[in-house]
């Protein structure tokens, strides 16, 4: 699993630029599904047809994109001005190593801020080592995006840290589930590797419309309440996959929550119940598609979400995989 995670977190793919991630995943899952489509928003939609007479359509969604910075101007001196793509936190961005899709490297820095002024994205710039505007523009274009540079490493025995763990960990989980599923399943399984989640669950909206599922399960990370001075949610790293009951974007279907918890029990894996006072996942857009869809989110607990070192526990991923395989069989 670690190798798969490492492979996926190291692919460049901010919101709106997920092509390379989709290419990587397509190669991994091609042999295990019946059809693969890419839609106008870049979603990778992988369908495995069910064998039942009237199979239910179960959509599983894991988003490929992660947060980043977009170049909006280039100063005469060659510095890049940027704006956030998704929920970037300034606090964890200062003096970070960042990378562009074409291999250009940079450092993101905050200029001195006048007293009384709140630091904002307009005070940040990226230094790519260009001597002036002309040289900078030969390296990057307006509209190019940078992400926190690859840095995937093990933390203790069971844990892994990397940028883009949100939500490549779920991509890895979904790839792994597709690979492990038996050749024939009763229900139709549509695995969607979605785009643009970090800017408002945009990809899953159109993917869900195309897929028209009966049941939607989002796979995503969730915050934790087990580090100093954090209180909610009551979710701990390493204590199992979390079944979401509610966040700001969706309220899970109560019956589906029960079924997933039961599948966890049957699989003999630890589960946690999650009530998150903020956040949203692809479940939000799936739930409100067409005539409405029963949804739930399975969350991998993750510390320091939206930073350059998002930490997960491999045992939680394993629990999620076993739960899903039990549920889908």
């Amino acid at each position, binding site marked *: 699993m670690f190798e798969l995670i490492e492979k996926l977190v190291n692919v460049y793919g901010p919101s709106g630029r997920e092509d390379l991630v989709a290419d990587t995943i397509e190669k991994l899952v091609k042999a295990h599904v019946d059809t693969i489509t890419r839609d106008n928003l870049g979603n990778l939609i992988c369908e495995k047809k069910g064998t039942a007479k009237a199979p239910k359509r179960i959509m599983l969604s894991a988003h490929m994109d992660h947060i980043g910075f977009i170049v909006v101007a280039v100063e005469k001196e060659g510095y890049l001005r940027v704006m956030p793509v998704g929920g970037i936190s300034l606090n964890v961005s200062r003096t970070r190593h960042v990378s562009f899709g074409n291999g250009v490297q940079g450092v993101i820095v905050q200029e001195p801020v006048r007293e009384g002024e709140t630091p904002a994205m307009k005070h940040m710039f990226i230094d790519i080592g260009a001597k002036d505007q002309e040289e900078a523009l030969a390296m990057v274009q307006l509209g190019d995006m940078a992400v926190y540079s690859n840095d995937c490493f093990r933390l203790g025995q069971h844990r892994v840290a990397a940028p883009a763990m949100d939500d490549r960990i779920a991509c890895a989980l979904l790839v792994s589930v597709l690979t492990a599923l038996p050749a024939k399943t009763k229900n139709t399984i549509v695995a969607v590797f979605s785009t643009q989640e970090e800017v408002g669950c945009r990809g899953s909206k159109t993917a869900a419309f195309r897929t028209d599922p009966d049941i939607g399960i989002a796979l995503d990370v969730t915050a934790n309440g087990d580090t100093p001075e954090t209180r909610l949610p*009551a979710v701990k790293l390493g204590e199992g996959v979390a079944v979401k009951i509610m966040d700001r974007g969706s309220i899970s279907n109560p019956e589906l929550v029960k079924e997933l918890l039961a599948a966890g029990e049957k699989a003999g894996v630890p589960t946690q119940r*999650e*009530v998150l006072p903020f956040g949203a996942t692809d479940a939000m857009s799936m739930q409100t598609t067409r005539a409405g869809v029963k949804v739930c989110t399975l969350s991998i607990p993750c510390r320091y979400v939206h930073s350059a070192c998002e930490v997960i526990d491999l045992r939680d991923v394993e629990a999620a995989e076993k739960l899903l395989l039990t549920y889908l069989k």
Partner: protein
Amino acid sequence: MDIFAYLEGMAAQHGPSGQEAQVSAWLAERFKPLCDSVTIDSLYNVIALKKATRPTSDGSPAPKVMLSAHQDEIALMVADVLPDGTLRMGSVGGVDPRILPASTVMVHASGETGQIRQMLGVVGATPPHLLSEADRGHNYKREDLFVDLGMETEAVKKLVQIGDLITLQGPATRLLNDRAASKTMDDRACVGSLLCAAEKLQTMNHLCDIYFVASTQEEVGAWGAYTAAYTVDPDLAVVLDVTHATIPASKPDTTVPLDAPAATYGPFVQHKLLDRLKKTAKDYGVALNTEYATSRTGTDTDLIQIAREGVPCVLIDLPLKYMHTTVELLDMHAISECGRLLAHFLSGLTEDWGAELWN
């Protein structure tokens, strides 16, 4: 229809946003005798169809009208069980923390077996004596409050799980002048108006197919109405929701009088349909006030209007005092007047209703 009896019934149901199974089943039974078919969909919307009673003159399909009032209520949820056995609360929809201190709530404990057991709880807070001068000057935030079940921690942990519902308590209370107070008048009082209209229409003719929708998840974004509108695919829609009636603290131009329904004007409401509604009110002697919405109305209208290729909407408002408390107060006469207005509006829809909409 005995409106107070209905209010007593509805206030005894629970149906927080996203978990409306119980109240939707109860409401479906109310619509069954009055409609041709009743379904509950995957988001717990109740969709009751009353088919046209007369054909269109040229044999074209009957226009479809969707009526929407939401059935869900704001509530709380167990976010954590603390070491002392008290419960920390999450919010389902916009619960005002000011109403919580010292109120009683119902905890729907799912236990180890998943069998729901209802348990009474009290919302507690640190007593004022122990607060600093500065903290006494502030309202409690939800995270400062907790639910006390009067049990030992061990017992609580056995019975209560994270994610269990906590509903507010507010039985229907009769007041002077046909006024009443209870929880969840927002918006089940308007579902009551739908039932009044359905009842009146039993003896009236209409050329439209009428879809009564008791929608869900309005308090968290009107999602039930949005998906129900996809299912129904209506030609036009009438939304019923509550609005603010005047109280001493009200600012000018933000409220309407308590004793009569109102209609909203503004870009989200189709202005020619609104004219038709106003004319109906005038013709049948229904007092109808007006209020404005410069864009969002904060009701099902906001999403029904943009379902599929779009739906022209009108919005009728039922005035209410003390919204999002457990003593939401309204005038029962206004509920039945809403129903009467709706029935005449629907019965008065003619084949050419859409002809003049856009010029």
